[in-house]
Every structure is written in C-alpha cells, then in structure tokens.
C-alpha cells in the first residue's frame, strides 16, 4: 500500500506529477474560495465599522456565515437571460472572468515551493492573464444587449487597459532590481528582514521604490475596479455597469472573479514589494511562524488597506481617472524605470 502511494506521489513519473499537480490545484482553489468568503465579509465589516454601522451580524456568530448565506441565495435564484442577447457569449463571459482570475494564481508562490507552476516568465504570464480579464467584462457588457451594460463595459475596459500600462512599468522596476521574472526568485532576492524588501529597503533606491509601491497599489485599485475607481459599476450613475443584466449564479461568478483579482493584486504587492513569505525579522521568534502565514498576513494587511480606501475615499470622475493614469502614473513609473536601471548599472555595478 505504501509503495502504491509513493508511486502515486512521485513527481518524476507522469502519473505522479499529474496527481500532485491536481492536488495542488485543488488545494489552491479550495483555500482561495473559502478564504474569499471571509474576505468578502471582512470587506463589508470594515466598511461598516468606518461608517459606525454593525455590518452583517445576523447569520452565524458575528455574521461569519453571511457570505455562505449569500452564496446559497445566489445559487437558488433564477438565471434571467434578457431577450436579444447573444446567449452563448452572455453565459460565457462570467465563466471567462472567473477562469482568468483562477488561472492567474497558478504562478503565485505563497511559500517556498508552494506554487503550482514555477514559470520562468511568471510575471509576464501574470500580466498576460490579467490583460485577458478584460474580456469577461467587455463581452458580458456587449452580450447583454443593453446600453447601460455596454457603456459600463467600455468604461471599465478603457480604465483597465490604461492602468495596465503603469502597472507594467512598476513591475519592470522590480524586475530590474531582482534580475529575474520568476516570482519565487523575486521573493528570494528579498530574503533577510524587512530592510531587504523592495518597498522598505534601507537603500537610496527606496526613495524610488516606495512611491512605486504606492503607484502600484493605486493602479491595482483601478485595475480591479475598486473604489475610488469603481466607475464601471458606479451604483448611483450607471446602475451596475457591465453586470446590470446579470442575475443569480452568473452574477456570482463575476463577483468571485472580481474578488479573486483583488486578492491576487494584494498578493502581488506582497511578492513585489513586501518580501513575499519572508518574516520581517530574520531571527528566532519571527522565523518560527510558517512562511505561508507571513504571506497571508501581509496580503490581508494590503486587503485591509483596499477596504479602508473603499470606505473613506470619494469616487473619481472619469476624466480625472484617465488623467491620473496617463499623465501622472505613466510618466512617474517610466521615470522610475530609468532611475532604477541607472541604479542597477552604476551603483550595483552590472545588469
């Protein structure tokens, strides 16, 4: 029996590799979905706390089961497909955005070796996948055959495409410092205490990298359509943007995809600027905590910031949003690329 198991989990054989990879994928999906339920709740609780409300507090102790109740409600409602829609694309769009959100996670390392696929071009893969996330939105908006949906989709897409550019340049600065596109190697390059993390390093280049972390954070808000850049779904103006015609499970898929992307962006900030799974101090009591816990703590802290921004910042106007993306962040991040490459060549001596 034990021989059978050792054969089944031996990654050298095709069968063992498939089994292990499948288990990894399953693990990621289950953990992500369950934690997503509580992250959603946390988002609403933080929002409520800032406005001095109680937030969801009826289902389960402290409302802990609220997300599951919401899930059941979504799942049991009727799927309404409006007349005149392109049925195939209408149903495909939410699936597309969910799948894109999930497969992006396949290159995210949450602890040493805890990654589904340790790609050499991991960060390019992430950029490519996140640029595909646009399709779920634009196709959903178009297929709904509604002017509101379509306008919301156009806004959303234009916004995401714009901020992708500055995100790309910010990522390039990190790549230059780490000298690798492999996410695990980027994290390894920041080993040894928080004074080695790219966002907080005790080094003159942090004068560039710290603002870049802020730029990345704000661009991530825009990229995931979070407030203050939630124009695509601005409830008071465009009803709910591209998803106005969606109901029940299809809407739920959009929602899960959106929150998965938000958590992904939080993990990206953690990996690129906050040293991924590394402990803030590289000595005893801190190194006892398992790496995956450090990763989660950091990512959740960034998510807390996301939630706080939602609660306290008023919505941007659309032209201001575009101005910020193209006229402020793009020149800033391009300048940072120049500065960082100069630093790498002249101060660190070699590329």
């Amino acid at each position, binding site marked *: 029996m034990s021989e059978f198991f050792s054969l089944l989990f031996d990654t050298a054989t095709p069968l063992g590799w498939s089994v292990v990879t499948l288990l990894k994928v399953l693990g990621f999906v289950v953990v992500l979905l369950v934690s997503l339920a509580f992250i959603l709740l946390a988002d609403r609780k933080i929002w409520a706390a800032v406005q001095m409300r109680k937030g969801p507090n009826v289902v389960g102790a402290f409302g802990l089961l609220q997300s599951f109740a919401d899930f059941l409600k979504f799942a049991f409602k009727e799927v309404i497909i409006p007349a005149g829609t392109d049925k195939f694309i209408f149903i495909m769009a939410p699936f597309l955005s969910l799948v894109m959100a999930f497969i992006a996670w396949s290159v995210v390392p949450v602890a040493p070796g805890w990654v589904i696929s340790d*790609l*050499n071009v991991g960060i390019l893969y992430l*950029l490519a996948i996140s*640029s595909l996330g646009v*399709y779920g939105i*634009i196709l959903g908006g178009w297929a709904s055959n509604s002017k509101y949906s379509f306008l919301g989709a156009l806004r959303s897409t234009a916004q995401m*495409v714009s901020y992708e550019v500055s995100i790309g340049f910010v990522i390039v600065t990190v790549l230059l410092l780490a000298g690798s596109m492999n996410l695990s190697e980027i994290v390894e390059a920041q080993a040894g205490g928080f004074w080695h993390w790219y966002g907080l390093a005790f080094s003159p280049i942090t004068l560039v990298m710290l603002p870049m972390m802020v730029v990345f954070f704000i661009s991530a808000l825009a990229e995931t359509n979070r407030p203050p850049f939630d124009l695509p779904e601005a409830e008071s103006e465009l009803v709910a943007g591209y998803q106005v015609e969606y109901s029940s499970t299809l809407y739920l898929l959009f929602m899960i995809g959106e929150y998965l992307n938000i958590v992904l962006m939080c993990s990206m900030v953690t990996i690129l600027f906050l040293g991924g799974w590394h402990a803030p101090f590289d000595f005893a009591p801190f190194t006892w905590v398992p790496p995956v816990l450090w990763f989660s703590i950091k990512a959740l802290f960034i998510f807390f910031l996301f939630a706080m921004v939602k609660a306290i910042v008023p919505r941007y106007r659309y032209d201001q949003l575009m*101005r910020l993306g193209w006229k402020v962040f793009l020149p800033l991040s391009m300048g940072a690329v120049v500065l960082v490459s100069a630093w790498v060549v002249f101060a660190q001596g070699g590329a």
Partner: protein
Amino acid sequence: MELAVLLPAIAFYVFAGAAIAFAFGVVAARNPVRSVLFLIMTFFSAAGLFVLLGAEFLAMILVMVYVGAVAVLFLFVVMMLDIDFVEMKQGFADYLPLGGLLAFVLTVELIVLGASWSISGKAEELRQAPITEGQDNLQAFSAVLYTDYAFFLEAAGLVLLVAMIGAIVLTNFHKKGVKRQNIPAQVARRAEDGVELVDVKPGQGI
C-alpha cells in the same frame, strides 16, 4: 512511439489545426464580434505553437500585446459600429464570380509553387533556433536584441513614435470655448483667492 516525441507532435497538430479552424471562423462568422473572438482564439493557438518551439517569451508577448490590447481595440470598434447584416450579405452574390476567380487563380498558383518547391537537406537544421542549455529564452533574446540589433530596435521604436504622433495630430483638436480643468491651479487655490468678506451695512445691501 516514444511519449516524449509523440506528445509535442500531437500538441502541434492540435494547435495548428485549431489555428486554421479559428482563422476560417474569422472569415465565416456572420457576426463581426464573433469574428474578432475567433481572431483572438487564433492568436492563442499561435501562442501555443510558440510555446512548443521553446519561445515562451514570444508566446507571452503575443498574448499580452495582441490578445490583451490590440484585439480589445478591435472589439471596441466592431461593437460600436452599427452594422446592417442584411445589407452586408446582399453584395455576396455580386462579388462571388470575381472573388471565386481570384481564389481559384491564387490556389492554382500555390499548387504550382508547391509542386516545384524543393527543400535542401540542410534547410531544417538551419532554421532551427539554437536553444542553449541553462540559458532561458529571455536572456538569449535580450543578449542579441540590445547589442547586435540595437539599431533596428530603435529604428522600429522611432517608426512607432512617428505613427503615434501622427495619429494624435490627426485626431486631436481643441474645441474653442470649452472649460478645461487646470489641476495645479485648483490645488494652489487658497481661501483668500476665492472668498471675499464684505461688511454689509444694515438696510443698504451690497
């Protein structure tokens, strides 16, 4: 046959077949939006072929630039155009003879060319990209791109810059009489600039 040889071969035929099928879909689809979707799938299949060749960097760039940006703009334009499908199909019969003739001539030419084509024994070997052990795709690329081919790279960048400026000049015009937002002026504005306190005498007004 060995599995390591068989799998890439199967993958190649799957990707290549998919690319051709989707490319056919681009032309055959009635709805232009679906055409663009087929085009995107074609790009994807091509990216898959790049991965098979060991050029994962090119594959990622293809997905990022063409699928992520160019095709989105295609979709924007196609979705916003108001296309009358009935009218579009009307011309089909008129153009059929001429189009059919063109297609026939081109096919014959291709067949003649293909039949007279001879492949030298070394051709395949010469065309293979050398993949050095221990050096990834990206390093191999950048080692020549920014040294031997730096001039061509910069020239290409310059051409794109000119095209971009041209596009902006052609489409950008400032309407007269439109109030524009001046952010620095707004930020620099103080209470003293905007508020004037007037001491109004009772019964007199301002």
